[in-house]
């Protein structure tokens, strides 16, 4: 066994290039945002503009090895979330399922950072629940008509495209009933609402009111929509090796070292020590699970429960970390960046919010548990031995 990721010379050279470029070109607003992407409309415009600059550099369509280094360098600036836009999944889907025309149209656009895509939210490995799909497709001559409403995940206030899963053959068995479409967001009949949530700007409600779609918006075969999205979410390029250590936990440990109460460092408090180390251990386990997943994917081994297990673990540990942060920091954990007393630019306050909304728009763990249970064959029964 070897738990160390070893970088090639090419990766190390690329790291130097990225690091120097980011130091010279990172807009002040984004640099200040740090790990807390709570941006106003101006901030999102700046974000999109910066993403296009990254695209011009060719850094939004990198090989898996270089993408890892790029993500690590962005992570050092606390900007890893910039790439958390699902573009790697949609690129994987187009590579595998797209027509030549779709590949020629969309892949350069995504690589240039010229297209912001929101996607219907589906957890990797989760069983299709037809009743949970809010959009229906019907035919009208050569066109497809979309009607309904669903939740989408994506950054910013407005997308360029919506990657949606719809029910197209309601009378067919579920595995033949859905279709995936890549729909331009400017079509007549599309309205977008971004609800005020604890983590604004990341989940959205999109309503389709008799939206007329050209047939070439279909991604993959009709009836195979769910499989198109699931295969993309589980593609090797989507399952990345985990980048450097958990910055939130690192910041918390540093805060405990640097902060004294009643003349004693928080890190020396025997009760808090236990909690701080527990947070460190939990982040190590997360990292090991992600390493395992990346190893399974990169070596072409079958992935069954592992992705859903990792997502469920992350969600549970985010909640646990949230409590540990409060126990260690007290009221300081609740101060946002606008408060001059906030620690670490209000990062910990953001963690308090994110922990309640991590991983999926519905903020519940059940889909992951169901996915694991399915993978393990629970409930199917078998002959008693």
């Amino acid at each position: 066994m070897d738990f160390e990721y070893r970088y090639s010379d090419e990766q190390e050279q690329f790291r130097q290039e990225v690091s120097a470029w980011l130091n010279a070109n990172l807009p002040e607003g984004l640099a200040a945002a740090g790990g807390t992407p709570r941006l106003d409309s101006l901030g999102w415009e700046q974000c999109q503009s910066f993403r296009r600059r990254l695209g011009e550099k060719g850094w939004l369509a990198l090989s898996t090895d270089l993408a890892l280094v790029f993500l690590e360098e962005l992570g050092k600036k606390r900007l890893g979330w910039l790439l958390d836009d699902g573009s790697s999944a949609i690129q994987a889907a187009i590579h595998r399922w797209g027509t030549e025309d779709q590949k020629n149209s969309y892949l350069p656009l995504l690589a240039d950072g010229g297209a912001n895509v929101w996607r219907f939210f589906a957890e990797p490995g989760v069983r299709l629940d037809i009743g949970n799909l809010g959009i229906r497709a019907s035919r009208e001559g050569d066109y497809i008509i979309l009607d309904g409403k669903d939740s989408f995940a994506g950054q910013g206030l407005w997308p360029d495209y919506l990657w949606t899963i719809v029910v197209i053959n309601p009378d067919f068995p579920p595995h033949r009933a859905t279709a995936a479409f890549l729909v331009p967001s400017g079509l007549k009949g599309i309205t977008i609402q971004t609800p005020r949530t604890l983590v604004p700007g990341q989940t959205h409600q999109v309503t389709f009111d008799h939206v007329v779609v050209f047939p070439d918006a279909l991604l993959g075969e009709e009836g195979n929509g769910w499989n198109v999205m699931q295969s993309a979410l589980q593609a090797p390029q989507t399952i990345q090796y985990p980048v450097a250590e958990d910055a939130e936990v690192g910041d918390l440990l540093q805060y405990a070292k640097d902060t004294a109460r009643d003349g004693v460092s928080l890190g020396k408090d025997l009760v808090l020590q236990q909690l701080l180390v527990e947070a460190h251990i939990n982040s190590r386990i997360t990292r090991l699970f992600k390493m395992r997943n990346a190893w399974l994917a990169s070596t072409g081994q079958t992935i069954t429960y592992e992705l859903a297990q990792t997502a469920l673990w992350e969600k549970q540990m985010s909640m646990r970390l949230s409590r540990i942060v409060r126990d260690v920091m007290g009221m300081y954990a609740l101060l946002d960046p606008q408060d001059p007393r906030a620690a670490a630019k209000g990062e910990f306050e953001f963690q308090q919010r994110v922990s309640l909304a991590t991983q999926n728009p519905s903020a519940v763990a059940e889909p992951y548990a169901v996915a694991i249970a399915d993978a393990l064959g629970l409930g199917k029964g078998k002959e008693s031995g």
Partner: protein
Amino acid sequence: MDLSLSPTQVQLKSSATEFLTAELPKERVREIDESPTGFDADLWRKMVDLGWTGMAIPEAYGGVGLTNTDFGVVAETLGYYASGSPLLDSAVLSANAILEAGSEAQKKEFLTAIANGQQIFTTAITEPEYGWGPSFIKMGAAHSGRHYVLNGTKLFIPWAHVADQIIVAARTSEGATPEEGISLFVVDKNAKGVSTRLMQGFIGDKVCEVNFNNVEVPASHMLGTAGHAWPALERSMDKATAILSTYMAGGAWKAYEMCRDYSQVRIAFGMPIGTFQYVQGNVIIALTESDACKWTAYEALWMLDTDRKETQIGVSTAKAVASDSFWKACDASHDVHGGIGIDITFGLTHYTKRARTFQHYLGDARYHRARMARLMEL
């Protein structure tokens, strides 16, 4: 990064699985556990013949000189079968203490005896004021001519009742720090003044109370120099701790498999109980706890094998996780099984009692988290 087993490890796992499937069905585990000594000499001899007692010992001293990860693969399989034996205590903890602290002559004498199965060793660290750090070693060893005289009690010492030699951690002087003043002695279990008592209760691998009443130990049986044994003992404990963690991962995985399988065959309200969310949740807990245990343990072994600077933190991470994961996996499994889970003949309790025993052996989660806090300079 490559998380696959090496060809040697695949071979070790395969042969261990084949051997233990044949030799250690759950009925046999129960018979051995319930026997007066809890020790199966015939099974032990077969383990010796397989070369397991020499896996961690260099070839120069009669062993095979395999890596810690190699041993971990076998230990994980032993845990899966709830195998109880002095293997970890003799062939890992004691052997490494001798390797780390012993003279060349001591290594040749003692390690060869461990490797070829002539003698079983165990290591006595904990005392009535239970704890795993150096400050808890209070038993005294007084220098008297060519001997040291040991007086005191060691508690929860694994397999001391069947051991031939006991490596005893005792204090030969007071030091400026708790680490200073600790020495290691190889004590003949049958020496005058040594008495052992098998401790009774809901215990997995057997543990003993060992009393030392004016036990004279030749100075030549001291490992290393007087008062400076703690670093060697700590390094030995780290190796044993990481390997024990893989044993616990194997046990946790079995507890998971048992509840997964049971949830598929037990019918309630006309359907398999695995249909019910509460049951599914417990199966998932068992699965995730055993996975966490496995990967942290193997990462620690890799750190040991590659001499990483953060090895001690990695080892304590592994044991902090294993200490809690094993019993959590077992408890979740019990929750799925209900009444049949506590039937001694069913087999789940073989794991449950070991989970609770090993939760504490070589340090519980709280001890290892505190150790990590110190190592991380919080």
